[in-house]
């Protein structure tokens, strides 16, 4: 089955993937997109500042870390990936570039993987800047550990969620954004918190577990919160995110290779 799936796909080329990634990043450098990115970078710092003031400077450092986690690896990353990864096919159809990219030898796979890469770079940079700004206005425990741990969480969030959003983008390109929001809510935030086998396939479970592990909270974790995290060590969580990403991307690639769009569906 796996071999058959692989045979249906055109193997991606590195130069093609990098060419598409560069092309997509250039496209993102527009004033509206840059304004959105700036807003995304400043928003977590503004919230942290407001939370600090509301608590009269006595915001619990652990709570501050949780708030940072909700705002950046979850909030900023999710929103950034939604607007950059979801339109991977629909944007090309609307701009009339679909035919020109996909008529190339590894066009479809390069388009998907190049956009995946550009989406991760764009969102990752915005999230790292957001983290830096937020840490400047927030008092947290382990100030030396938080930037490293959160940088890891941002990268894993970007890789896992960009791959997750690739599926609705190729299955329902015309409604990819709405479908991706639905996937984020149902898969990541409903299935992800269910203490059942289904949550093992979610990125959110892995990120929460890594947060607990890297912040050293495992020993003092309340029983009800223990249900929301995995018991396996950190390296298993990291591998699990990459496995989920590879499975999602492979499925998206095999679907994209077979997609046909009648001329009437373009522009």
């Amino acid at each position, binding site marked *: 089955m796996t071999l058959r799936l692989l045979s249906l796909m055109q193997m991606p080329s590195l130069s093609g993937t*990098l*060419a598409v990634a560069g*092309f997509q990043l*250039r*496209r993102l450098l527009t004033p509206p997109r840059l304004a959105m990115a700036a807003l995304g970078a400043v928003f977590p710092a503004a919230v942290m500042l407001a939370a600090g003031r509301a608590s009269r400077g006595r915001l619990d450092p652990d709570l501050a870390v949780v708030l940072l986690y909700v705002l950046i690896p979850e909030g900023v990353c999710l929103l950034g990936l939604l607007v950059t990864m979801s339109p991977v096919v629909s944007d090309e159809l609307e701009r*009339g570039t679909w035919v020109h990219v996909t*008529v*190339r030898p590894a*066009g479809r796979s*390069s388009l998907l993987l190049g956009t995946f890469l550009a989406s991760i770079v764009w969102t990752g940079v915005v999230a790292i800047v957001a983290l830096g700004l937020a840490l400047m206005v927030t008092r947290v425990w382990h100030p030396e550990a938080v930037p490293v741990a959160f940088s890891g969480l941002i990268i894993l969030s970007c890789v896992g969620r960009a791959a997750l959003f690739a599926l609705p983008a190729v299955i329902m390109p015309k409604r990819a954004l709405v479908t991706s929001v639905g996937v984020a809510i149902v898969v990541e935030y409903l299935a992800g918190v269910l203490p059942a086998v289904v949550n093992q396939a979610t990125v959110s479970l892995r990120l929460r577990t890594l947060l607990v592990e890297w912040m050293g909270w495992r020993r003092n974790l309340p029983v009800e919160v223990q249900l929301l995290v995995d018991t396996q060590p950190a390296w298993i969580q990291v591998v699990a995110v990459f496995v989920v990403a590879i499975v999602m991307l492979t499925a998206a690639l095999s679907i994209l290779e077979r997609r046909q769009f009648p001329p009437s569906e373009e522009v």
Partner: protein
Amino acid sequence: MIEVVDLVKDYRAGDGSVVRAVDGISLHVAAGETVGLLGANGAGKTTTLRVLATLLKPTSGTARVADYDVVADPVGVRRNLGYVSATTGVPDRLTPREIFTSFGRLHGLDRDATTVRVEHLLDALDLASCADRPAGRLSSGQRQRISLGRALVHDPPALVLDEPTNALDVLGARDLLAMVGQLRAEGHAILISTHRLHEIEHRCDRFVIVHMGRIVATGTRDELVADGAGLEDAFFVAVSRRAL
């Protein structure tokens, strides 16, 4: 070089019914030959060209480019085919040089080969003077030349042009078709679709007239056109004969 045999392409409509866009079309284009695919809107021209470009899969029949089958070896087809469409799809923010370079890399050309090829195309397509200006600031004629250059970046032996002059004024269309003539002289096999018959009447070696997905006439201009008439008259005769 380009060969289509008994090509059929069905689409499934939104209500579940099947619409036959192409119904048994056969044609061939040899190296150094230009063939005009003529037909009204919805005749099946674009669908035929998109099957050849491996963008759509045929329902039945075969299509081959440079001896590569579009179903069995789509990658071989893509390596040997250049495709130009009516909608240029040229990104406004990128320059001609950046567009050619990106697509050269997408074709797997190495950096040096891409640079040489890009400079050649900029000169050949008269784009050198605007090579570093964003495409959004260029004229529609220059944008269509970028589209042609993008199709030629890997120097394919076969070219498929889908209504390439649609968005162009008279001068832009004449320039583009002159370049297509040069490519033919260099030995490229060219299949060009249009419904602006006067533009290509004297530029194609042969014509294939399609109507409602079927071929209704085929031949050279002299074979199709009666004394004193034009290609447009021949087109109307062929189409109305089919309608009856």
